[in-house]
């Protein structure tokens, strides 16, 4: 069995966390409108550009110079290039913008089409159309003279950053201890995934809004006759889905690959297939299912597939998406409602009973 070093393990956990927070958004939007939203991951890209712009604007406005020195904190070497509040403002902006773009799609595209009686196929195609519009807007945005000037002016402050190859990994927080070096984005991804699980659980089960969301999703007509503004509840659900994608977008800017609005190397284009896979494998109608499904697909691609390299050669890792698709195919064949629909208590009871028999 191939040894997986700690660095690769963290990388796999980062990727799995990213997939799980994006998959849950796909599920939330599917549960309300019954449509697979192909633009969902692009919400993250929009949030990336906004967060990057905010960082540069703040750096320029407050003349913030990147601090790339290592500091000793609690026995570890830590590098924090920017003040905490800059990261926080960028993160909040990404969260809000991701949510707002989702609400715009809901009110301007999906709701009007639904009112005209559009079927699920038409709605799905419309999400692709909205995705193309977002790509076009991002291309226009990154080539705006004002944006170019902003990046030129901030080079001396925070290092080389250009919007045609959005990459700010040099500005990421880095923690180093012994031979292990962990990037802040990796830790944040896991925190975001955990916060999403806890946050959504509390929202859906402990708040009035959550119960209204669940009831509107289960039976919109009955919710309407109880006086619930189902349209608004769905819009809030879309906001939450988009805002969670915004969290992923914030993480994208610290990725170690160059970003453009659309390209084979852009994270959003690389992972959209895996995000859908996570949502389907976990259960397209289950919030906890999709979180688990996203995490599972992430681990399959970045943790288990590399384990196969001693047998099939290192080239196997290029085919990690094949394994995700295989997981989707098997799920649809045997448990179409996803892993969340399985009665695990019964499965484990049966397993236990068989174990005793043998």
């Amino acid at each position, binding site marked *: 069995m191939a040894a997986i070093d700690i660095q690769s393990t963290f990388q796999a956990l980062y990727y799995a966390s990213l997939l799980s927070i994006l998959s849950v958004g796909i599920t939330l939007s599917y549960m309300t409108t019954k449509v697979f939203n192909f633009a969902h991951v692009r919400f993250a890209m929009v949030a990336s550009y906004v967060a990057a712009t905010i960082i540069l604007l703040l750096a320029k406005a407050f003349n913030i110079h990147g601090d790339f020195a290592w500091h000793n904190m609690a026995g570890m070497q830590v590098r924090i290039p920017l003040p905490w509040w800059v990261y926080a403002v960028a993160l909040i902006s990404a969260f809000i913008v991701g949510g707002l773009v989702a609400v715009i799609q809901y009110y301007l595209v999906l709701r009007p089409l639904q009112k005209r*009686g559009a079927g699920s196929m038409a709605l799905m195609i419309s999400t692709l159309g909205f995705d193309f519009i977002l790509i076009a807007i991002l291309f226009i945005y990154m080539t705006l003279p004002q944006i170019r000037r902003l990046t030129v002016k901030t080079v001396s402050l925070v290092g080389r950053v250009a919007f045609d190859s959005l990459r700010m990994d040099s500005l990421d927080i880095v923690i180093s201890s012994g031979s292990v070096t962990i990037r802040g984005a990796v830790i944040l991804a896991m925190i975001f995934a955990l916060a999403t699980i806890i946050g959504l659980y509390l929202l859906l089960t402990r708040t*009035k809004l959550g*119960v*209204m969301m*669940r*009831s509107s999703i*289960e*039976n919109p*007509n*009955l*919710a*309407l*006759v*109880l*006086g*619930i*503004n*189902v349209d608004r509840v769905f819009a809030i659900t879309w906001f939450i889905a988009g805002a969670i994608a915004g969290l992923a977008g914030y993480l994208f800017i610290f990725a170690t690959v160059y970003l453009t609005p659309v390209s084979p190397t852009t994270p959003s284009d690389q992972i959209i297939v895996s995000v859908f896979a996570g949502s389907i494998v976990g259960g397209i109608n289950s919030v906890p299912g999709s979180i688990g499904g996203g995490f599972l697909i992430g681990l399959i691609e970045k943790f288990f597939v590399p384990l196969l390299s001693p047998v099939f050669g290192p080239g196997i890792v290029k085919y990690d998406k094949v394994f995700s698709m295989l997981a989707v195919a098997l799920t649809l064949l045997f448990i179409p409602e996803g892993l969340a629909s399985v009665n695990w208590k019964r499965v484990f009871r049966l397993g236990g009973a068989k174990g005793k028999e043998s």
Partner: protein
Amino acid sequence: MPEPMLSLQKVNSGYGKFHILFDIDLEVPKGKITVVVGPNGAGKTTLLNTIFGLATIHSGKVIYKGRDITHVPAYKRAKMGMAYTLQLFNIFSTLTVKENLLLATYDIPEDEAKKRMEEVFQLFPRLKERLFQRAGTLSGGERQMLAIAISMLRKPELMLLDEPTAGLAPKLAKEVFEAIRHLGDQGYTIILAEQNAKGALEIGDEAVLIASGRIVARGKAQELLQDKDLSRKYLGLEV
């Protein structure tokens, strides 16, 4: 003559482009049970959906308590004192009985909500016993009781009930009809659409007979029940 609680004036409605109801004129008096009967596919549910804003109104007016509500969205009608018990999917089956009841009182002060719940439990004591049970696991009769309880908790001025006895055993259906009559005696204004014409007309005050999307007869419920010709022709009843 006192102003009716609700009136429909030359209403044509349906779903999207589909036209189902034609030139409906209807007046619902306050504090009475108005029964809507008719054969399958006559348009009874569409009539209730039209009143509550769940159908498309092509022309005509819906007047509620003297106000034109033709274009008021459904959720706002609920806040104006209307409640609607749907024929199908009329409870949240994945939620518990308690959660269903709480949802019906989400916009009501807590003390008032508790008071109303106690009133509901007096009428349907079985619901109190099933409070923490998933609504989807209730029996057919209990489900209908919960559905009516949800409407009752809204303390509506106008209550729409769509076939509350559908699929129930005769004994349970009788219990549900008795509960509805009890509500009528308490002063609720009720529009009851029923397939079980005999049972509904027996407890009703006023009645309309609807067929092929048009009102073909109206009058006192007892009179309609006694009308041999109409009963035989439209309701399959032998008087």
